[in-house]
């Protein structure tokens, strides 16, 4: 088994052309995920995490976006790496669902309401594995059993409205994993679920990841979830990765003021402010049409100096496997 990363994203730049101007949603994003590993992609709403994942799937083009620069190299199985950013759409459709699969945030609206869940799982199987109707149905039942749906032989003909949110998310996972993808993109898969169900779904993803040996890109704004699931973490802010490190290091010794701010605002671990409130990061993320010169976090950063406001910092390697986009990272301390 080769050690090449399953996915290697380099300097990805995704742009939405709007009448008000080009919005650069993802700017110079680079990361890679080794086989069997999980990368947690963290950031607040609008930081570009979802656009990053949609770019990997080339689904961003359906929403009016385009990949303006960078490379997305996929190495599925034992084959040669494939450059996804310029792949013709017909070839990209074969990659989707087979090599990269995706689980979305909203299980309540992610399934076609007039198709049975079995047919929706079988659709992927028939599409990518060329199985006949009966075989695909058998495989769909098998997948339902795998994701822990009781009495799968009976539930296979159920329709989405007959299932709870947690059950529907299990069905979504069954669809995503039905073709044993090399990479699973989980875009906030537990955000819409009850806390107890969240834990079950996270367990399920972890268990199946070990079973299938796939890599996972786990997108979330919840640092607690990241601590539980990820091997490495990339923190996004205003369309850029601002820090990337092994999960333990991110929590122990954050090296970017934004990461520090995020950690400080986790309930439970955080020190309360003088008036017994959770600390917050002052200010708001910059308008993507009018981002500041220099470091994008500088206007909200307690450590910002003049140098931060003139030149945009690079995502620099500060230790093996650790990168940060901050010129004052040595001063960042918990």
């Amino acid at each position, binding site marked *: 088994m080769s050690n090449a990363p399953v996915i290697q994203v380099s300097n990805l730049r995704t742009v939405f052309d709007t009448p008000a101007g080009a919005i650069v949603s993802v700017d110079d994003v680079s990361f890679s995920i080794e086989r069997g590993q999980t990368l947690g992609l963290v950031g607040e709403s609008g930081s570009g995490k979802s656009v990053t994942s949609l770019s990997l*799937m080339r*689904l961003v083009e*359906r929403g009016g976006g385009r990949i303006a620069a960078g490379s997305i190299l996929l190495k599925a199985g034992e084959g040669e790496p494939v450059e996804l950013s310029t792949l013709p759409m017909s070839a990209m*459709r*074969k*990659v*989707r*669902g*087979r090599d990269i*699969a*995706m689980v*979305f945030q*909203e299980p309540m*609206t*992610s*399934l*076609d*309401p*007039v*198709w*049975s869940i079995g047919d929706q799982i079988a*659709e*992927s199987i028939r*599409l*990518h594995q060329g199985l006949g109707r009966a075989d695909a149905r058998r495989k769909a039942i098998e997948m339902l059993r795998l994701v822990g749906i009781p009495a799968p032989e009976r539930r296979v003909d159920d*329709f989405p*409205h*007959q299932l709870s949110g947690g059950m529907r998310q299990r069905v*979504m996972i069954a*669809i995503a994993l039905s073709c044993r993808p090399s990479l699973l993109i989980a875009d906030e898969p537990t955000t819409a679920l009850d806390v107890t169900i969240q834990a079950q779904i996270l367990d399920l993803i972890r268990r199946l990841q070990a079973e299938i040996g796939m890599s996972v890109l786990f997108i979330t704004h919840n640092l607690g979830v990241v601590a539980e699931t990820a091997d490495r973490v990339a923190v996004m802010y205003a369309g850029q990765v601002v820090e990337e490190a092994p999960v333990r290091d991110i929590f122990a010794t954050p090296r970017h003021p934004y990461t520090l701010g995020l950690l400080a605002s986790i309930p439970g671990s955080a020190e309360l402010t003088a008036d017994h409130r959770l600390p917050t990061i002052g200010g708001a993320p910059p308008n993507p049409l009018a981002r500041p010169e220099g470091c994008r976090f500088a206007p909200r950063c307690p450590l910002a100096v003049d140098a931060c406001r003139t030149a945009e910092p690079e995502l620099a390697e500060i230790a093996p496997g650790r990168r940060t986009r901050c010129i004052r990272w040595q001063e960042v301390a918990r």
Partner: protein
Amino acid sequence: MTRFVVERIGSAILTILGASIIAFIVLRALPNDPARLIAGPFASDDVLNAVRAQMGLDKPLVAQYVDYLVNFFTGDWGFSYGAGKPVLPLVAERLPASAELAIVAFVGSFAAAVILTVLVSFSRSRLLDGALRMLSFVSVGVPPFWISLLLLMLFFEQLGWFPGPVGRGPAPAAVTGLYTVDYLLAGNLRGAVDALWHLALPAFALALGSFGYLVRLLRANLLDVVHEPFVTVLHSKGVAPVTAHFRHILPNAFLPTLTAGGLILAQLIGGSVLVEQIFTWPGIGTLVIDGITRQDYAVVQSFILLSAMIYIVVNLAVDLLYGYVDPRVRRS
């Protein structure tokens, strides 16, 4: 599912009863004395009383209503003094012409609306979409009587491509009363084409509004469904756009259109009064206009109840069909 069917049929029966009460009250509320209309302006009180007794008008209102209802459902729809015949055979004779016109108009508008809208939405072309929207606005906005006259002027008077306002063509041997079908049953293809030729202009005039309405409805529904998250999921599975559009998006968007289709069909059968009048189409529309102008109330009353019943029955059929095609209704 059985419970769903029983509930729907039960509510349909209740609605028909409601419509019958309205039809009954409308007749009773009219200022004219039916006995006076029948017996004439110079009849003596004795004669009028005799006529009233014969018609049951001397009974209490509730008893009259029950009589009326029983008579209606046992096939006695009253006597048309204008036509000098009982109402039921008169309506039975006219109904197929209206039904044929309505069915052709409905099938045409429904098929054209669905095909055009689905293809335009699949093409994702702003230009075609704009053109279709314009077309639908115009179709909805144009009054049927006006487009009828326009069609006649252009295609009958100027170009001579279609027959004029002469109603239906020569009658075939009656089986169903629908000329096109009867000609086909008799193996007479030319006759069937001729029957369709006579139908073309009035059906077009009648269909235009429904076409525009259906286009607007289906287009809006398609736009809604296209932006549903499950469509993104389909693409993430590697499903081809054509499969996503025709096998997933369309069935979802089609459901509300089905309901509207039922309403439109029922409306077309009973509501083609003006178009029938212009094309001298021998349907129930012209019968009702005659009935109103001659104060032939048995005809009008029967028409009200009959069109209400058609409306309710067609909608019942759509509801049941809905239960069949929509799993959310079927299983609940």
